[in-house]
């Protein structure tokens, strides 16, 4: 009932009388070995986003279409797809901005496709875990000593990188990840930086073992597209370049003052 009324609300936004064609990537492993494109004629409603158009297909035209979505407000990071070749959150991409169409909707690039618009993201989840995206302390202080305090300036050092919603648009936009699937990738490195730059964290050394390697930061050739597509302005490209700078400085420091290495 709740779902029905939700769908009802969406289609009540004024229809413009126009229609637009959505060319949707279909891959049904039990039916085909190569993907095909299926065209759907969808009414244009004012304020509809591409996700609304997909929901219209799912509800009224073809219930077999598979895709991921959840919050519809750019927070959950589930609905990332390629829209006309660009990695976009479909909940934040207005149909009106793509008229007269056709609008091509494909699964995120550089990931295996499970079905239709649904991609396999285990690789990302494993890489994310490998950089220990949590606060690491050499020694936890006892509870009665209170919380770890932080100034607004210290928060500002990493706040931008904490905005990541793991939507994977940056991986779909990164040709390095497409060519070298072993590459740790933009979001994971940005999230590692989020903790490295946190004044409460002491785990930079542990993360370095994963990141200061060829498959970590050094495979990045600074295409910069990850930062362009990021819906949260995380700027992973900047995170990676700054990591390269600090890692290089550390290397020289160890070379010139071997006794000071921690």
């Amino acid at each position, binding site marked *: 009932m709740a779902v029905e009324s939700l769908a009802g609300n969406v289609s009540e936004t004024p229809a413009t009388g126009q229609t637009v064609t959505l060319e949707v990537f279909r891959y049904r492993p039990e039916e085909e070995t190569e993907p095909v494109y299926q065209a759907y004629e969808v009414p244009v409603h004012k304020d509809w986003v591409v996700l609304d158009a997909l929901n219209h297909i799912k509800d009224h035209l073809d219930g077999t279409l598979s895709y991921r979505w959840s919050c519809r407000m750019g927070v959950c990071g589930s609905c990332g797809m390629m829209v006309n070749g660009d990695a976009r959150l479909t909940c934040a991409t207005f149909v009106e901005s793509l008229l007269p169409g056709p609008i091509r909707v494909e699964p995120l690039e550089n990931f295996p496709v499970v079905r239709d618009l649904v991609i396999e993201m285990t690789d990302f989840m494993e890489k994310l875990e490998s950089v220990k995206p949590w606060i690491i302390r050499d020694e936890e202080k006892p509870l009665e000593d209170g919380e770890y305090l932080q100034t607004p300036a210290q928060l500002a050092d990493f706040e931008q990188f904490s905005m990541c919603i793991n939507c994977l648009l940056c991986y779909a936009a990164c040709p390095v990840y497409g060519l070298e699937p072993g590459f740790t990738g933009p979001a994971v490195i940005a999230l590692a930086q989020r903790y490295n730059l946190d004044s409460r964290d002491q785990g930079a050394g542990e993360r370095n073992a994963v990141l200061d390697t060829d498959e970590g930061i050094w495979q990045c050739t600074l*295409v910069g597209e990850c930062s362009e597509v990021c819906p949260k302005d995380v700027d992973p490209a*900047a995170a990676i370049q700054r990591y390269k700078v600090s890692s290089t400085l550390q290397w020289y420091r160890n070379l010139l003052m071997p006794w000071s290495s921690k």
Partner: protein
Amino acid sequence: MSANPQHTPYHPRWYRAPMPIFWWVRRWIHARFILRELTSIFVAGYALVYLLQLRALGMGPEAYGRFLELLQSPLSISLHGISLVFVMYHSITWFNLAPRALSLRLGGRRVPDKVIAGLNFAAWAGMSAALLWVTLTG
């Protein structure tokens, strides 16, 4: 969810789109990136010319004269012209990227990207002017 018997047999049959060799021609931003990577060949070529010039200088005035003559050939001049275009492109895109790698804080505030790029460009222009002055007056 796992009660669906249909799911398991198909689970490994993921579709993996191959990455075409010319993946970078599809989008301008990628073509621009490959162009920037290609400029490094010209930067390296220019460095090589300098090394050869030093070598000729070490071999005496006669060898150096021959080298200078070689540099004045139409082929050499046109190659230098092409290299100049690529090296300029390399430098400009590089300085524009500098704010990505540099996060400076002054008085608790982040130095704006434009200032960081601008300082790089200013340093470049200053050094070029100094070099030009030394070359023309020296």
